[in-house]
């Protein structure tokens, strides 16, 4: 059994908000000039992660099934004069790097996960096995446009970040426990995970092959 405490949690689910509106809403949280190259996903992740007040000792685990699908679309469209900015931005894990580079915040460990399936469970395992005293667990998606219509980008836009610690400090928001369970073969999806965080729902059930998860909100 591996236990961690959720010290801080932040979510953002802007619905159908366009990227330009997200930039206007969030750009004040970044150094001047940093926002001009940031994507919607980058601004959302940077904003929720900023609420964790990252330090140089924190590890970061980042998960996104589709990553920077808008930048990917735009990069494909830029050929034959391929855009170096869009190339750079489309490469995973740009979504989390944009904000950290904007704030010049070094990170000793960054584990970026992609894809569907067991992404939440595998990423939580990485977070819990990190030797860092505090792990910032963050992720999200941005709604795609043409790639979404083809089924290769996200339908939704959302972002989340948690600060996970080994000990509970005053103000702790919740507790999560991973337990080995050979009976578990199903996987908690990223969308379901976001719902649990956004709605502050307790959860007890399958996480990923071989592990179950118990998440309870409130002071311990």
């Amino acid at each position, binding site marked *: 059994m591996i236990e961690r405490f959720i010290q801080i949690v932040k979510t953002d689910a802007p619905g159908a908000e366009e990227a330009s509106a997200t930039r206007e809403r969030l750009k004040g949280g970044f150094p001047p*000039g940093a926002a*001009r*190259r940031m994507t919607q996903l980058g601004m959302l992740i940077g904003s929720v992660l900023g609420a964790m007040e990252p330090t140089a000792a924190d590890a970061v685990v980042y998960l996104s099934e589709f990553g920077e699908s808008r930048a990917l679309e735009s990069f494909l469209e830029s050929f034959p*004069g*391929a*855009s*170096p*900015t869009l190339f*750079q931005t489309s490469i995973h894990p740009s979504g989390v790097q944009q904000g950290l580079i904007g704030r010049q915040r070094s990170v000793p460990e960054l584990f970026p996960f992609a894809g569907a399936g067991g992404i939440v469970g595998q990423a939580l395992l990485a977070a819990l096995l990190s030797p860092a005293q505090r792990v910032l667990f963050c992720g999200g998606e941005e709604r795609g446009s043409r790639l979404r219509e083809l089924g290769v980008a996200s339908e939704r836009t959302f972002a989340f970040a948690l600060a996970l610690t080994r000990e509970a400090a005053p103000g702790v928001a919740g507790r999560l426990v991973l337990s080995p369970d050979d009976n578990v073969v199903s996987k908690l999806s990223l969308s379901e995970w976001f719902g649990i965080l956004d709605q502050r729902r307790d959860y007890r059930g399958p996480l990923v092959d071989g592990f179950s998860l118990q998440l309870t909100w409130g002071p311990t």
Partner: protein
Amino acid sequence: MADPLTFRLKNIIVETLHLEGIKPEDIKDDEPLMGSGLALDSIDALELVVKLEKEFGIKIGSSEESRQALSSVTGLAAFIRQRADQSRLPS
């Protein structure tokens, strides 16, 4: 009266790099483009190169050559005048 090429380059810089709150006339001719008040970096430089290659039909071969070309607006204008077909320069 501003030199047409210099004027066009300043517009390209603002438009291509989405510089909010900066007008073309705010950019000084001889101010270093990188690491100055504009806070442009190497990726901005390369983005400009793509645009300049397309507009003026010039070719920049390496990242080192990019840095040399983009020393300042004045330096860039001289670089383009040297490399471009004159018919592609603004009159």
